[in-house]
């Protein structure tokens, strides 16, 4: 059931005339403008580049959060999901997975290109990608939760940003610590395990909460 939902979301995104690429486009523009604003000096940019990449990814994800449920809510598809007897938890799992695949994965894949702008050493680029991969489930799940709570609200987009920010702060802190500790401690650095833990907490608390929020929306 979840698999056909994910497949449908991906087909809908691919046929949307490129709308799913706005996040990637924003990510690229953010990186390019940061490089210009910092004067293009590699010595200046190299130490803060991982932070810029993390910020670009988080802002770009925030832009995409409202779209997780908006079209399904507006055209009545969510109501039909409920009446089909489908479990809302598996719906939220499917939505979080398709969000990860469509709105986060392309950004992580393009991190090496962003690294070229900042002349990042290979090991820092690699640590950046791993830390983002480990944090991706938590980012997608908190986005799903906020989108479920605010589905159908007119000014939802702004509130989604406010609501997800506190959840994303620990990811940002530990993600960047992981990148800086990677050189000394490798993948065994404590922060990588913390990121996995944050993603697991997100999965065990955020997903059921998102399902409950949807259930409340639909009655």
């Amino acid at each position: 059931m979840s698999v056909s939902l994910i497949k449908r979301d991906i087909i809908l995104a691919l046929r949307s005339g490129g709308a799913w690429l706005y996040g990637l486009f924003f990510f690229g523009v953010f990186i390019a403008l940061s490089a210009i604003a910092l004067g293009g000096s590699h010595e200046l940019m190299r130490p803060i580049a991982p932070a810029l990449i993390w910020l670009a990814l988080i802002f770009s994800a925030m832009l995409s959060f409202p779209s997780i449920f908006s079209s399904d809510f507006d055209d009545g598809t969510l109501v039909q999901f409920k009446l089909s007897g489908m479990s809302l938890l598996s719906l939220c799992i499917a939505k979080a997975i398709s969000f990860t695949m469509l709105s986060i994965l392309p950004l992580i894949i393009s991190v090496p290109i962003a690294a070229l702008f900042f002349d990042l050493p290979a090991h820092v680029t690699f640590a950046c990608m791993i830390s983002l991969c480990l944090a991706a489930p938590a980012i997608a799940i908190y986005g799903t939760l906020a989108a479920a709570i605010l589905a159908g609200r007119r000014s939802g987009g702004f509130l989604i940003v406010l609501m997800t920010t506190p959840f994303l702060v620990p990811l940002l802190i530990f993600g960047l610590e992981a990148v800086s500790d990677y050189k000394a401690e490798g993948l065994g650095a404590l922060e990588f395990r913390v990121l996995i833990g944050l993603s697991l907490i997100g999965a065990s608390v955020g997903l059921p909460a998102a399902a409950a929020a949807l259930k409340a929306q639909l009655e």
Partner: protein
Amino acid sequence: MSKLFPKINSIAGVSVDALALSRGGIELFRDITVRIASEEILWIHGGNGIGKTTLLEGLCGLLRPDRGRIEWRREHAPCQPSDIIAYQPHLSFAKAVMSTHEELTFWAKLHGTKALIDSALDNVGLTPKSHVPCGKLSAGQKRRLALAKLIISQKPIWIMDEPTAAIDKTGRDMVDALIRAHIERGGGAIIASHNPARALGLKVRKLTLEAASLEGTR
């Protein structure tokens, strides 16, 4: 036809007791008491904005009643609305970029009725359009697609919001024939329309919503 409409042996029903529903903080009606079960049609009639859709959404379990109770039953035991109800809303919920066939296949998978897709499309006259994106269908064809979704859901109670809006004369006869086939196999139907009940050749119970029923509440 018999493949699409296998006999429904279990008795399903919805009973409504002294129901009051509101939308946007305004009470639309109160004290509605009605019962609908297998092999029955309930025709809800009323003008625009009188609360027909609100009542239907209540019957689908999508709104919390202000007062009163709605109960869904299968085989005389309480059940979830999703166990017995298929809802055809006024707006089409087809995705514009999916083809008619893909859209129906997705919902058939959810209901576990993939074997019925082609005959359901044929039955509502959409076979020639099966590879056309839903966004390119006319309003009437979208209604037909929604009917096909009702059929593939294989639920005992159909709840239909203006089923013949935007549909031509032959389409209207088709809708009537589908409803008749559904009732004869042991299903039930709740139909809301701004038109008075049509003669479907079946016993139709009528419920008329009137603004007058709210007089004196404000």
